[in-house]
């Protein structure tokens, strides 16, 4: 396969609104699950760029590999995960770029949390139940600033809690004494302890109800503005992403099928899957539009067919879709800031007119 060329080109050309330099560049990352002879290729040469100060939304339905991407980029994937190729370039505060996948253990350990922090999907279970949250925050700080005295670190921890709207006397609490929303905030506070360049948030709010979700998201966005870090925000709730993200990457079956500015994705989805995804959410306001949904079931990653993985569910599938894997590239319309992996848009030979839902 040779998606490398296109994606590389695509990623560089994909200049964001701020046109800031990239802080995190994932290139052709491939991940397998299983150490045996027949591993599941979950991620296949995925590339992604995150620019300074940007919120990049990663959307896609359950099991498409969103979390895998996040974990693999930081080499936190548990066994039997295996990174089989690719690079993850991270620019740290000093401006040095390094490939996370090539770092030694010690270097990687140093880079973690200081340059790239991550808030996990199961934030409820991300806190060690047997330690006070103070210790858990302080541990992270002290590991990177060994010279810092524990009192100082404690000060800092209190400050962090206040940052996320929790009173500092909660430092002495154990996780089980906090409500879900508070735990989530603690996690975020902890992730921000060292003012990392990149914050990866893997479905940080799915377990919470909407009110709480909004509160937390707004806090994060506010902090981002204050502290200037970049965020990779993972969720399957596209309508949420459209609201919070600057840019959205839509994933399907271990591949990125479309990336574009959030507004553009919402207003003019180009990939049939993106369109289907958006058509699955009933809108709360505005006219009651017809919901289309996506027929069929998500693919089984362990038994891949050739061709576009979405083809079996795609209402516009063509013959070529069943035989050839589309690569991420510009649309035929030549829109800036948008890459799509779909034959409908990239095949030059495509003579048929685009379906109206994809060509708004």
């Amino acid at each position, binding site marked *: 396969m040779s998606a490398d060329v296109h994606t590389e080109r695509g990623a560089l050309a994909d200049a964001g609104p701020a046109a800031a330099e990239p802080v995190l560049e994932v290139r052709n990352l491939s991940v397998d699950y299983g*150490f045996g002879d027949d591993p599941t290729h979950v991620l296949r040469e995925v590339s992604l760029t995150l620019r300074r100060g940007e919120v990049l939304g990663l959307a896609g339905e359950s099991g498409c590999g969103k979390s895998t991407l996040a*974990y693999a980029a*930081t080499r*936190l994937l*548990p*066994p039997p995960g295996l990174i089989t190729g690719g690079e993850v370039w991270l620019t740290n505060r000093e401006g040095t770029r390094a490939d996370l996948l090539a770092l030694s*253990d010690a270097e*990687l*350990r*140093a*880079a*973690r*949390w*200081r340059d790239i*922090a*991550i808030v*996990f999907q*199961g934030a409820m*279970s*991300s*806190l*060690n*139940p*047997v330690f*006070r949250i103070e210790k858990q925050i302080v*541990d*992270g700080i002290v*590991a*990177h600033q060994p010279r810092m005295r524990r009192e100082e670190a404690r000060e800092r921890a209190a400050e962090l809690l206040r940052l996320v709207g929790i009173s500092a006397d909660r430092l002495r609490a*154990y996780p*089980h*004494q906090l409500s879900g929303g508070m735990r989530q905030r603690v*996690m975020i506070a*902890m992730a921000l302890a060292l003012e990392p360049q990149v914050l990866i948030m893997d479905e940080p709010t799915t377990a919470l109800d909407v009110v709480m979700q909004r509160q937390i998201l707004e806090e994060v966005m506010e902090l981002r503005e204050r502290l200037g870090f970049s965020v990779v925000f993972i969720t399957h709730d596209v309508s949420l992403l459209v609201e919070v993200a600057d840019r959205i990457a839509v994933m399907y079956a271990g591949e990125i099928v479309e990336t574009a500015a959030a507004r553009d994705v919402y207003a003019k989805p180009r990939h049939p899957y993106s369109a289907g995804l958006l058509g699955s959410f009933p809108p709360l306001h505005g006219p009651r539009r017809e919901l289309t949904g996506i027929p069929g079931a998500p693919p089984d990653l362990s038994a891949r067919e050739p061709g576009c993985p979405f083809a079996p569910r795609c209402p516009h599938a063509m013959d070529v879709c069943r035989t050839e894997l589309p690569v991420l590239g510009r649309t035929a319309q030549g829109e800036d800031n948008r890459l799509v992996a779909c034959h409908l848009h990239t095949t030059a030979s495509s003579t048929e007119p685009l379906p109206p839902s994809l060509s708004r």
Partner: protein
Amino acid sequence: MSFLLRRVAFYALTAWAAITINFFIPRLLPGDPVTALLGRMQGRIDSNAEHSLRVLFGLDQDTTLWQQYLDYWGLLLRGDLGLSFTHFPTPVSEIVDQSLPWTVGLVGVATVIAFVIGSLIGTFLGWRRGTWADGLLPVATFFQAVPYFWLGLITIAVLSVNLGWFPSSGSYDRGLVPAFTGEFIGSVVYYGFLPALTVVLSSVAGWVLGMRNMMVTVSSEDYVTVAHAKGLAERQVMLGYAARNAVLPQVSSFALSLGFVVGGTLIMEMVFSYQGIGYTLYQAVSTHDYPLMQGCFLVITLSVLVANMVADLAYALLDPRTRTEDR
């Protein structure tokens, strides 16, 4: 608070049950200490002695079981466990006094050592899962399955009879009189080494296996991954985050396994001629020495109960979730 109360109630109930079982088992079943004594002596005691023995042990009177039960409680509450038949007329409490510290000392130390070593090895194996370290598992299963007495006897045959490195029996040099001297303590350690070694060898495997499994489970918990993500040193993650949590179920099964441990000691004491409560119990059983039997069983059960309580407390200390949570 209610947690504590419930535990206390539970322990009280268990103690009562143990004491009652203890009373009934020897009585409801046939056999009698005098015939057992005659049997054991196989003719070395004059057959005419039987009657005098019955008079001596007070077995010539008839009282109802209920009356006996009440008497038993009455005496027990006064700390009186009665007089032993075989060691007549030594009070059972004296015998228990004399043997319990040895068992508690040796078994306690050995069990704690086994627990610590086993948990450490298990931590390591669980952490290094999927590497050569997995090769140690079959060895562990083998040691877990070997009957204790067999291991003990072979150890004696090899290490003390053939190689002569260790004494094969006794708790300290028979020429010494217990005292707080270096010589005596040294002798106790020297004599205790082999029994302790075998106890450790045969029980360590269980801890290894349990800990390893818990480590495997715990190390895929999110908070361990978070610890990694925080960039903590590997050792800190392994011991501070993974092992710290993996050991919790171990602690509670540690408490429960104490019963098994004491059972094991009985055999250890037999094999190594070690003076201790287990062997005393066995002796009492084979001689139908009710008072002694009851005393030993009671003391064993109560010490297991106490140990359980300690382990319970330790668990509560280690796991904040069990403590009452008033916000």
